[in-house]
């Protein structure tokens, strides 16, 4: 059964067409892409996330989904900063360090949608003051936003 209903699909398709600027690659890291993974909670969550992302990516020719096994492609996972699965790097003209971990379902589907559009545009909607402060940031900032699907 598809995750997205037909009317949601149409809405998302139109929104992506209207709002996206450049192409976006979704580098998705999961348990295994060879079918050798053992069923279990982690596997089930990864599979569910993969299906959602496949449906999502099919809605725009500007969104490309690349699925990686975190063990088979551990170097790629490390270079993308993916240390848990399901893990997603949302990459546009450059890798801005935008990541999503877990299931992009429920309210978090909107988070995914907004992230893809923002990365596609490559520009932020922040005030001049915030941009000025970020331009002189004295060190690296690793921001983790913990959410639940409801």
């Amino acid at each position, binding site marked *: 059964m598809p995750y997205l209903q037909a009317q949601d699909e149409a809405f998302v398709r139109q929104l992506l067409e209207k709002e996206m600027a450049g192409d976006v690659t979704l580098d998705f890291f999961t348990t295994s892409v060879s079918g050798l993974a053992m069923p279990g909670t982690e596997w089930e969550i990864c599979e569910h996330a993969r299906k959602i992302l496949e449906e999502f990516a099919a809605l725009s020719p500007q969104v490309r989904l690349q699925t990686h096994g975190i063990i088979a492609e551990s170097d790629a996972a490390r270079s993308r900063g993916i240390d848990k699965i399901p893990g997603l790097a949302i990459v546009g003209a450059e890798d801005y360090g935008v990541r999503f971990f877990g299931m992009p379902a429920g309210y978090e589907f909107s988070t995914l949608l907004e992230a893809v559009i923002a990365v596609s545009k490559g520009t932020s909607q*922040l005030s001049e003051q*915030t941009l000025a402060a970020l331009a002189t940031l004295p060190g690296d900032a*690793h921001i983790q936003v*913990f959410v639940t699907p409801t």
Partner: protein
Amino acid sequence: MAYHMAIASPKVRAEVVEVSGFPRLAQRYNIYAVPKIVINDRVSFEGALPEPLFLSRVLEGVSSPAEASGE
């Protein structure tokens, strides 16, 4: 907000973590309410903040010494 900061600065990495699949992380970071935002494992807060306040917590997380961890 976090994603926009990552797009604006190469020094910012922003991760949204849907915690239901990561119970150990929920435990490690004492997630009782969401959204919970953790910056450099040093500074944390719950709930949405206006942009200037969010920024001030980010700056605090970047500049505060590791020993000052609130976690």
